[in-house]
């Protein structure tokens, strides 16, 4: 129907339409150029920019604070901290370095997973392949290994510093306990990662480690009161860890899952709580404020 009407309108109508279209195109071109110019000159004025960065970043204290608060990656950080809290001689920066190493381990670990099969026989061959032939494989594996060693050291030093500065005291008792759980999880990550190359070192280390689990009181077949509770090598805590009575394919697979999926997930949850509590408990602890006796105000009397 519309086509018929157009043809009936004649040549004059068509010319007008063409002219209008040309005008529109010209205006559109002008506007596009204008928009492009503002985008290039002042990208922060565009809708795209404003949708991503909602805060105007002028150089004021409020704006800088908002820059931290409104950023998903920075919002765990306090917007402002005490000057003492950033003194390396006081904190050693060990908590932050531990977290940094965790990030490094996560990234290199995920990359290593692309070449690693957690099966007997194949596992060790994959490690040899990674070390000798995969492009950057040796670098990644060494990064993972050294970051793992370093993280154990930094986590212990972090705990040591917190102990020395008395930062486990009220109101930070709960966060100390969360930290102890994180320490245990870090050790478990280290232990489960040990078996994954499936070499002699890892095999016997896990043999020794799970033999210790075998000696757990009540829950281990070799531990005190274990046999009395009916524990054998086929139903005790060692059996649950290995998925069998010997260090074999099931143990390798279980180690792999705990190492790559379960413990990092559990640890991330506890890390989130840990960082959040640091802030809620009053920020990184600083040196105790000195108060002279003369400064202590007497109770107000009515």
């Amino acid at each position, binding site marked *: 129907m519309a086509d018929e009407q157009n043809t009936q309108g004649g040549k004059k109508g068509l010319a007008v339409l063409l002219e209008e279209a040309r005008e529109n195109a010209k205006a559109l071109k002008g506007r596009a150029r204008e928009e492009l110019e503002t985008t290039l000159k002042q990208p922060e004025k565009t809708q795209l920019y404003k949708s991503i960065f909602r805060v105007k970043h002028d150089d004021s204290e409020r704006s800088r604070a908002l820059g931290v608060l409104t950023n998903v990656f920075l919002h765990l950080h306090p917007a402002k901290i005490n000057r003492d809290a950033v003194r390396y001689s006081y904190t050693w920066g060990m908590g932050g370095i531990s977290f940094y190493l965790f990030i490094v381990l996560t990234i290199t670990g995920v990359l290593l997973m692309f070449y690693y099969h957690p099966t007997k026989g194949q596992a060790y061959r994959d490690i040899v392949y990674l070390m000798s032939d995969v492009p950057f494989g040796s670098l990644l594996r060494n990064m993972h290994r050294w970051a793992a060693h370093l993280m154990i050291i930094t986590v212990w030093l972090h705990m040591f510093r917190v102990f020395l500065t008395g930062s486990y005291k009220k109101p930070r008792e709960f966060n100390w306990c969360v930290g102890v759980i994180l320490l245990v999880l870090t050790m478990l990550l280290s232990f489960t990662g040990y078996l994954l190359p499936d070499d002699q070192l890892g095999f016997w280390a896990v043999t020794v480690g799970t033999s210790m689990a075998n000696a757990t009181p009540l829950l281990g077949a070799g531990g005190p009161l274990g046999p009395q509770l009916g524990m054998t090598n086929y139903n005790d805590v060692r059996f649950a860890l290995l*998925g*069998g009575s010997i260090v074999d394919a099931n143990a390798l697979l279980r180690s792999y899952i705990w190492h790559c999926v379960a413990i990092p997930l559990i640890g991330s949850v506890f890390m989130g709580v840990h960082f959040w509590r640091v802030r809620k408990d009053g920020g990184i602890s600083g040196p105790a404020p000195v108060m002279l006796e003369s400064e202590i105000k007497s109770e107000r009397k009515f």
Partner: protein
Amino acid sequence: MSSADHARPQVAAQSLSLVVAESSKPAAPAKPAASAVPGENPGVNKLRRRVVWSCVWGFLAANLLMFLRYFFPRTLFEPSTIFKIGYPSDFQPGVDERFKAQYRIWVIREADRLFVIYGRCTHLGCTPDWKPSEHKFKCPCHGSGYTAEGINFEGPAPRPMDRAHVELDAEGQIVVDTSRLYSWPKGGGDHFNDPGAYINV
């Protein structure tokens, strides 16, 4: 900062409970809606939420038990613990290393008896090495030493190595079962002379 922050949500909670009480129980003139303890309102029937919450927690608890049971497989694909190792006449006096790699055992033949030592260090479970020149077993993990009969004499091992069950089948072949072990517990008497712990030869 903290006092103001704490105050606000409390006020909100109180006013909310008031609203709930008024809307749910309009015809309750005997008891005033506002109770002495904030957050506790006798006018609200809590039975339903208790039932729902106990269902949720019960479900989660059942799931946790299932999760724990899941880690104990019923079927194992491990090498059989029962196997034949030949005739007593196949073994010379002394320690025989033939089956160490395959079955983790040593066959010991003495003047009048034959027994099988299960090759697991009693300290933390490594496999010791037989050192013929020193005539002893030595564990590479933490240095435990055992005599040629598997009796501990040095290092951290708390007791002698276990011996596996042995018997002769109808053909006269030795059948070993490493799931039935004879041990000498620390401070206890040894089971090395029990029937099944050795074969007379």
